[in-house]
């Protein structure tokens, strides 16, 4: 692993207490939310990003509190399934992030409706996950958007946002819940953006994803799986 400047933490219990003091480094917390995903990224200059909120409102709220998170600069939902967006409305109400980004693909569930209602209510800047970069302090997020046309097979999963994070010479790929169909497309569309140091394995390590050609292209030094 590079001599970086990365603190990679799997948080296993609510009793965990993180600290944001004296940040010289990038911190990525891959939270143990069970079957779901949630990652907190804290930059060397204090910017805070949350990608997904996992399946349980109380769990993510406790994690954020235990990590002493005081604000969120950017909130991202990889896709609209409840194991990635539960409690988003409460997170928005409490932390008032300025900016929100998602795939732009709606869902009919209550969890999704609460989330977009909160975005409007608290007047967040809404951005759709099109092919674009987000520059936030020393962090650059490159959005690899859903396919065009959208994949219809396993629709919400396969049209998850895929997000590449770059910080200095370190990189990490967040893959939402994409499956083999989307992985195959990404190999053609974005091969150059796939090689990273850390891979957040897609779809909780389900057999529907992580095809060998995709893993070979990403070629991570470390992989993270939530299950």
């Amino acid at each position, binding site marked *: 692993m590079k001599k970086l400047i990365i603190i990679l933490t799997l948080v296993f219990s609510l009793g965990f207490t993180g600290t944001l003091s004296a940040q010289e480094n990038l911190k990525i917390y891959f939270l143990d939310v069970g079957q779901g995903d949630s990652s907190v990224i804290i930059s060397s200059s204090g910017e805070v990003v949350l990608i997904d909120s996992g399946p349980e409102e109380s769990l993510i709220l406790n994690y954020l509190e235990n990590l002493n998170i005081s604000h969120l600069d950017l909130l991202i939902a990889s896709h609209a399934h409840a194991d990635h967006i539960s409690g988003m409305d409460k997170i928005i109400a409490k932390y008032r992030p300025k900016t929100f980004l998602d795939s*732009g693909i*709606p*869902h*009919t569930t209550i969890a999704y409706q609460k989330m*977009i209602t909160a*975005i*409007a209510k608290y007047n967040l*800047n809404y951005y759709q996950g099109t092919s674009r970069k*987000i*520059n936030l302090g020393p962090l650059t997020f490159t959005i690899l958007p859903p396919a065009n046309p959208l994949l219809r097979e396993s629709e919400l999963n396969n049209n998850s946002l895929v997000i590449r994070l770059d910080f200095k010479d370190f990189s990490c790929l967040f893959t939402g819940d994409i499956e083999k169909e989307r992985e195959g497309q990404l190999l053609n569309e974005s091969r150059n953006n796939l090689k990273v140091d850390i891979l957040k394995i897609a779809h909780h390590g389900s057999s529907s994803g992580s095809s060998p050609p995709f893993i070979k292209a990403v070629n991570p030094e470390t992989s993270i799986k939530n299950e």
Partner: protein
Amino acid sequence: MLIQLIIDRFEGKYAILEFQNKNSLIFKFPRSLLPQGAKEGTVIRFNIDLDEKETETRRKNIQEQLDNLKKKDQGGDIQL
């Protein structure tokens, strides 16, 4: 479709229900949504239908909300 389930047990806020078909399926269901008097061993019935009208209503309402949000997005890279 009417399906019949048996309450196997309670675990905290959830009832663990057993559905007997070719294979036995076990799943969790919120205890608070069960009728009063439900206890271990009680047989309960679910009547399950597609509500296409309500689905379409929700889809339209949510799409409208999302479209309003998307109007604010002017495209391009984002500098925060």
